[in-house]
């Protein structure tokens, strides 16, 4: 999980031109509590298949995704289309998963499915053991990994 989270930090810094840092479970909880009620979040999930398989996910506030998407594409936030924000979230997850697999299993070949994007309400709590938390431009981002047997 830590390696996947580290990949997310690198993607955010290198490709999204953002400030990113891993955070503790407590810091993640505080950051989640500070988000507005009713805030929309995006969850991008990438299924990977190879010597082992599973789903790598990244969840982030839609407003943060919009901010990062604008920076990624060189646009101002008001010029970014809603579909572009979803596409961006998927690319974030795709790069995170690909970087993690390349680093951790460079001898193996994995195939990545197209990202699946869901919208959901602000998470109120997360199980620290199941996620990797990071702050991107001071906003919470949650990374998780589901092994194949828990896919649905």
């Amino acid at each position, binding site marked *: 999980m830590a390696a996947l989270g580290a990949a997310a930090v690198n993607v955010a810094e290198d490709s999204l031109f953002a400030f990113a840092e891993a955070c503790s479970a407590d810091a993640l909880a505080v950051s989640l509590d500070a988000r507005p009620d009713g805030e929309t979040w995006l969850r991008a999930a990438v299924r990977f298949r190879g010597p082992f398989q599973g789903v790598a996910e990244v969840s982030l506030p839609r407003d943060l995704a919009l901010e990062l998407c604008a920076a990624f*594409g060189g646009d101002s936030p008001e010029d970014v289309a809603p579909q572009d924000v979803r596409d961006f979230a998927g690319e974030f997850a*795709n790069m995170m998963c690909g970087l993690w697999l390349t680093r951790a299993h460079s001898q193996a*070949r994995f195939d990545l499915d197209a990202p699946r994007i869901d919208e959901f309400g602000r998470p109120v709590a997360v199980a620290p053991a199941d996620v990797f938390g990071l702050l991107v431009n001071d906003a919470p981002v949650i990374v998780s990994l589901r092994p194949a047997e828990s896919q649905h």
Partner: protein
Amino acid sequence: MQSELTPETAGAGPNVLIVDDSAMMRKLIRRVTSVVGVPIGTIFEAGNGREALDILEHEDIKFVFTDINMPVMTGTELLRAMHERPEWQHIVRIIISTDGSEARREEVSGLDVKMYVEKPFRPEVMRDVLSDLSPTTGR
């Protein structure tokens, strides 16, 4: 996925084809390609290998930047199809993929790939790629 992709016309220089199923990634590569200070002609986009082959049939392309994991036709399948066409031998093929594994690199060896760029990449990487390749591949 975007089904109709409009080319962006720029100045005189080699034409570029960007192949990626992510519209955002195509946009990023297009933006970086057009601002790195290397003369570029028209930038075409394709969402998968099949769309890329259609463009290659009709346009004079000098650089192909392609992803690997794509629906319909993957980047590897595209490169294999290009490899079988001697008239496309002059086209410079650059992979831009999240998958930088040795297994994947081995899979595309022998398919005339000039460079392999791993995502995420910094914009200056694209500048260096185009700068390195342009002196020997310009029109």
